[in-house]
C-alpha cells in the first residue's frame, strides 16, 4: 500500500471532478498522448531493445533470442515468449517477487498485440523443421511508473523488435557477439489505452488518473487500422457505441504515433 493513502484520496477527488468538468490536471486534451521518447539499441548486449519514456513513465524492453525445439503443432515456426517485471525500483508499491496478476496481464496483453498482429514472420525463424527453431523472448522491464504501462510496453516491444538482429548460429551454438540479419517483422502494432472516469474516457492516463479511474480499455491497432488485440480492465462498463468510438480514436492516435516513432 502507498503510505500516503489519505493524500491520494484527496488527489483522486480533485482529479475526478476536474475530468468530469472536461479537463486534465496536466492540461492535455482527453485524447492526447504525453510526450513520447523512444531510444532503440539501448542495451547493446540484447538482440534488440528500446527505452520508452511516456511522460515520466519509463519502460525498458529487451529482446533476447535463443534456440529450442518447436511446438508439436507448429513444427516450422519460431516461438514468441513475453514476460513483464514490475521491479520494485519503479514504484513504492511494487515488491520483489514473482509477477503478480498485474504484471501477468501486462505481459499477456503485450504478447497478444505482437502475436495476433502477425508482426513477426515466425516461419522464417525455423532452423530445421520439427527440430530446431528460434525463440524470441521479449522482456518488459518497468523502470519508473507514472501510469499507462500498457501503451509504453507495447510501443517498446514494437520498437525493440523492429531493431532486433538475429545472432549467428554455428553448429547449433549461438555466437551472441555476432548479430546478423534483422528479425523479419511485417507490422508495427501500437496501442491506445483509455481510462474511464465517470462517463469520460482519457487516452494515456498518468498515475493519478489511473488511481482515479473506474476502469480502462486497451486497443492494439495494426498499421492497416485493424484491431489485433483488446483488453478491458477494472470496474467499469462500456456501451457498444463507446467501444466503437474509442476504436476510431485509437486508429487515429496510434497512426500518428507510429509515424513519429517507428523507423522502418
Amino acid at each position: 500500500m502507498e503510505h500516503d493513502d489519505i493524500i491520494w484520496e484527496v488527489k483522486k477527488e480533485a482529479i475526478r471532478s476536474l475530468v468530469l468538468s472536461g479537463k486534465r490536471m496536466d492540461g492535455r486534451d482527453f485524447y492526447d498522448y504525453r510526450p513520447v521518447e523512444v531510444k532503440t539499441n539501448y542495451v547493446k548486449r540484447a538482440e534488440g531493445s528500446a527505452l520508452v519514456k511516456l511522460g515520466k513513465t519509463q519502460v525498458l524492453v529487451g529482446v533476447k533470442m535463443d534456440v529450442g525445439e518447436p511446438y508439436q503443432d507448429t513444427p516450422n515456426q519460431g516461438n514468441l515468449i513475453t514476460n513483464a517485471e514490475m521491479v520494485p525500483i519503479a514504484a513504492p508499491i511494487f515488491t520483489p517477487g514473482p509477477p503478480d496478476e498485474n504484471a501477468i496481464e501486462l505481459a499477456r496483453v503485450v504478447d497478444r498485440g505482437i502475436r495476433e498482429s502477425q508482426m513477426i514472420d515466425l516461419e522464417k525463424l525455423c532452423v530445421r523443421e520439427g527440430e530446431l527453431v528460434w525463440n524470441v523472448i521479449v522482456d518488459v522491464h518497468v523502470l519508473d511508473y507514472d501510469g499507462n504501462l500498457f501503451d509504453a510496453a507495447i510501443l517498446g516491444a514494437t520498437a525493440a523488435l523492429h531493431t532486433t538482429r538475429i545472432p549467428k548460429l554455428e553448429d547449433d551454438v549461438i555466437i551472441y557477439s555476432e548479430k546478423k540479419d534483422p528479425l523479419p517483422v511485417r507490422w508495427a502494432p501500437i496501442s491506445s489505452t483509455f481510462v474511464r472516469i465517470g462517463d469520460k474516457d482519457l487516452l494515456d492516463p498518468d498515475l493519478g488518473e489511473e488511481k482515479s479511474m473506474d476502469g480502462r480499455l486497451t486497443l492494439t491497432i495494426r498499421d492497416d487500422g485493424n484491431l489485433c488485440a483488446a483488453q478491458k480492465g477494472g470496474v467499469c462498463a462500456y456501451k457498444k457505441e463507446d467501444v466503437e468510438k474509442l476504436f476510431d480514436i485509437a486508429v487515429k492516435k496510434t497512426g500518428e504515433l507510429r509515424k513519429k516513432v517507428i523507423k522502418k
Partner: protein
Amino acid sequence: MKNPGIKLLDENGKRLDGRGLKELRPITIKAGVLDRADGSCYLEWGGNKVLAGVYGPREVIPRHLADPLKARVVYRYNLAPFSVDERARPGPSRRSIEISKVSREALEKAIFLEEFPKTQIDVYVEVLEAEAGTRCAALTAASVALADAGIPMRDLVTACAAGKIEGKIALDLMKEEDNYGEADFPIAIMPRTKEIVLMQMDGNFTREELTEALETAINGAMQVYELQKKALKERYKIEGE
C-alpha cells in the same frame, strides 16, 4: 490464430458441428449442486463442463486485506488437470491468472460490494472439461452461483464470445474454430442494460467486423441470460416446494 488447414464452413455456410454462423452451442445450467458451498452452479456449454461455487460474504484472511468500505472479491478460474488433451499442470497458469482477474473485475461491477464491508466473497470455478469458451462458461456459471448464494447484484453477468472464421463473424467458437479461426472476442454484459463488463480480443477485426462482433456477442449473451434465469427459477421452485 494459427494458419488455417481446415475448412470451417461448408458450402451451405454451416459450421463443423452443423450450426449456423449466429447459433450457440447447446447449453444447460443447474443451480445449487454443491452441499458445502454457499451457492453453486453446474453448467455445460458445448463440450465444456464447469462447476462454480461461492463462499461468503465471510471474514477476510489475512485480515489486513479487508476493505473497510466494501467486500473483497476473489475469483479463481481453475483448469482440472484432465480437462484438456495434454494434462494441465495443477495450480494457476499465467493464462488462468489473467482470466481470473478480468472475470473478477466484471463481477465487481455487478455485485453490491458496499453492502458487505470488511468481508470477502470467494468465487471458485472448476473447469472439469474444456472445449473453447471456458472463460465465458465459467463467468456465466459464477454469476448464477452468486445469485444462488443470495449475494445481492445489480444484474446477472452473462458472457458469450463472438469470433471470426473464414472471414465471417460467428457466434460462440468451438475448439477447431478457435484454433484455426481469425479472431476470438469474448465479452460479458449485464443483460438489463447490455453494458459490457468484460472484453478481450485477439485476432484481426476491421471497423465493420468489430461492430458486427459486438452485436453478435451481445445477442448471444442475451440468449444465455434466459437460460441463467430459467436455472435460478428452477432452483427457487425446488427450494420453495
